[in-house]
């Protein structure tokens, strides 16, 4: 069977859709989990704080590939048949939540102590302080690095090809084997990721510059 250039591109675009979908799922679910993790990481309870710290350390200190394998083979131990898509979504969510929680913690800690003290003296509870005083300010600072990290999530999805999830990289690998044109195919795969990631990188840089510009 002969492949035209359009056949290669068409198939890669189909793979790209899955890369995009997985990135979105991981980013949204990871964001929600990351927010909970952030609350644990900055709570008054030392056990909760320690637990969150250990979780973050674990996911930042091990390869994403190993996290994928652990989820993939770990869930199977319970006798549950887990698809590559499910394992990929879960592992990337866990991975994303750890990094986002750590990024956001930095943003929360950059808010002056005075803000905590002032809101505390207004008899706001800790959650109210976060909700009405700290987080609105921290969110402004957090936008740029969060958008910047989304690039890492998109790139991270490439690793899921290894457990057999048919996204962009896996599609590229299969096409390279079928067409005997690895140079062209992997080049196009790289272009695909670049098209997804570069606008994100640019917006992160733009947002950062806008934030640091003198008011």
């Amino acid at each position, binding site marked *: 069977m002969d492949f035209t250039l359009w056949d290669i591109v068409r198939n890669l675009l189909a793979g790209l859709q899955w890369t995009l979908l997985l990135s979105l799922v991981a980013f949204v679910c990871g964001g929600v989990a990351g927010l909970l993790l952030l609350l644990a990481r900055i709570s008054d309870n030392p056990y909760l704080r320690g637990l969150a710290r250990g979780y973050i*350390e*674990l996911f*930042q*200190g*091990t*390869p*994403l*590939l*190993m*996290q994928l*394998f*652990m989820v993939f*083979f*770990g869930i*199977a*131990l*319970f*006798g549950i048949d887990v698809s590559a898509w499910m394992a990929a979504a879960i592992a990337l969510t866990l991975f994303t939540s750890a990094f986002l929680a750590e990024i956001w913690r930095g943003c929360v800690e950059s808010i002056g102590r005075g803000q905590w003290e002032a809101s505390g003296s207004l008899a706001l509870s800790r959650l109210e302080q976060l909700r009405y005083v700290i987080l609105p300010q921290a969110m402004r600072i957090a936008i740029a690095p969060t958008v910047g990290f989304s*690039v890492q999530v998109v*790139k*991270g*999805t*490439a*690793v899921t*090809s*290894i457990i057999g999830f048919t996204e962009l*990289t896996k599609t*590229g*690998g299969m096409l*390279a084997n079928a067409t005997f*044109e*690895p*140079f062209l*195919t*992997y*080049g196009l*795969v*790289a272009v695909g*990721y*670049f098209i997804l*990631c*570069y606008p994100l*990188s640019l917006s992160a840089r733009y947002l950062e510059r806008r934030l640091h510009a003198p008011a």
Partner: protein
Amino acid sequence: MAYQFDFAPVLAQADLLLKGALFTLQLTVVGTVLGLAIGVLGAVVRAWRLQPFSAVFGAYVELIRNTPFLVQLFFIFFGLPALGVRLSEWEAAVLAMVINLGAYSTEIIRAGIMAIPKGQLEAAAALAMSRFEAFRHVILRPALAKVWPALSSQIVIVMLGSAVCSQIATEELSFAANFIQSRNFRAFETYLLTTVLYLLMAIGVRQLLAWLGQRWLMGRR
């Protein structure tokens, strides 16, 4: 859960895991040294806007930072032979790590160089330092010292990222893990131990880099 954990078949192959871990560390050392060399060169070229090299480095940095390491690795290992460049699995792994770290460290070190106040260079000139002395002591060292924490994290990220090199059969730690679990079918136990090894290596490398930074960059002589 009815599953019986059994680590014995994995521990029986511990020497393979340790050999793999050692190879991962070797790849990391070579990748770091060469990657940082590219980073320093790129940062200087970018910070001083030496055209046309600055534009070339700019494109290189964007290209590498916006594509996955795995794809870069596949491109080098499977794609480059079409151009007549055939690399062994470990050569391809090292090259991919060097290119990857080179791009990130270019950006990181450039930020450090840009943060050096102009007055420092003027002061160096007033002390009759040669251009090279000024570059070495007044620009490079303080710049590296400023961004050393960021560089250290990036080096650890590259080391952990090298786990995917098992996909081109580079015989590093995750390759050893794949090999062991394919023989004893104890996938979870094997990957659990491997993950712990990676975690210890990450912590160790981070500590080592912090110590090196203290000694070479921030220490007084």
